[in-house]
């Protein structure tokens, strides 16, 4: 693996770092462990970058590796206790601190709801929230389009219902 792939990973992380970070948050509640998971994802992408071919989009390629890496995290998640304090710090420029804190709390609530989903639904929910269509989700997860669509509907219903209650 040469210097070229290291330069390229910097571009990939600049473009998709936010997505990776959100996927990591869907699988891990502890911010410190989230950072480790994000690092593992980035490392796996860097290793796999030389094998990237233009058959799929780079975003799909990155999401697939991130999802695969997130699965590796599940065993650790099972062992850890579930309690986690909410981090309400968030810089604000345009809205009032109350609004910002409110949005942050809602975001935390959404992340918790996604993490509570069973793994097959969590996988599709994370990708759908990133803007992937059912067909792309099927490609990322290596499942049939029909299966992806069924899972996606269940995940959407579960999350929307959770947010209404």
């Amino acid at each position, binding site marked *: 693996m040469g210097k070229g792939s290291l330069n390229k990973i910097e571009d990939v992380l600049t473009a998709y770092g936010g997505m990776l970070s959100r996927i990591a948050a869907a699988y891990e509640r502890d911010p410190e462990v989230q950072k480790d998971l994000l690092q593992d994802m980035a490392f796996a992408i860097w*290793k796999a970058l030389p094998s990237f071919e233009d058959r799929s989009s780079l975003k799909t390629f990155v999401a697939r590796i991130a999802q695969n890496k997130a699965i590796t995290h599940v065993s650790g998640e099972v062992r850890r206790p579930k309690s986690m304090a909410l981090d309400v710090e968030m810089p604000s420029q345009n809205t009032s601190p109350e609004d910002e804190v409110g949005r942050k709390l809602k975001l935390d609530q959404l992340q918790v709801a996604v993490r509570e989903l069973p793994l097959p639904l969590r996988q599709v929910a994370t990708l759908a929230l990133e803007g992937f269509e059912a067909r792309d989700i099927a490609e990322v997860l290596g499942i049939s389009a029909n299966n992806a669509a069924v899972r996606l509907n269940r995940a959407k219903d579960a999350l929307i219902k959770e947010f209404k209650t």
Partner: protein
Amino acid sequence: MSKSEKQSGDWSNLSNLWQEAPEPDMAELVKKIKTKTFRMKAIFIFEVLVGIAAIILCLFAVFFKEEAISMVIGSVGVALSLLAIYFTWWVRKDIWEANSSSQNDQLKLLIKRSKAGVKYATFNLWGCLIGVAFVGLVFFLDFKGEINANAEKQGFLIFFLIGFAIYLIGVLVGSVIYLNKNKSEGVVYRKLLSDLNEEEKENEDPLT
């Protein structure tokens, strides 16, 4: 408004909220990747160098010691060291491969890793036992009859044995923890693989 339009609107709100999560520090992330790569290579190189050092010591015993037993012990030592170097490479060869494209293959790779971890820990545990026997034999043959007469050798022996005991306890405890970790991870990954495949079967359209 239809149910699907309502769902679409609600989902769009959730999606927007989801995208608001703060971005991580990418420069720090790239730095960490470089450190991790360096650490993995350094550990591998260190283990190979330790093996080579052991081979050199054993070869010294084979070619420069006069007793026949030294030749036997040296030869066994060379064989064990070569085996250890080979094992160091073998246990990593599948782990360093690039990620496979499907999640099934990825999970299979993880199961393979946990199996390799179990083998690695088992090898270390057996290595400890063989190491104890080997060192005991070397000391018995080397110090036989003169342990009480030679104070310098006695001091060296005590110093060596304390160091060896600390090393041994460290390896034993570490190996048992590593063994249990890999065993439990293997169970979780197998269950995950089975769950995901079950889900796939359940959701398959019977008409397709």
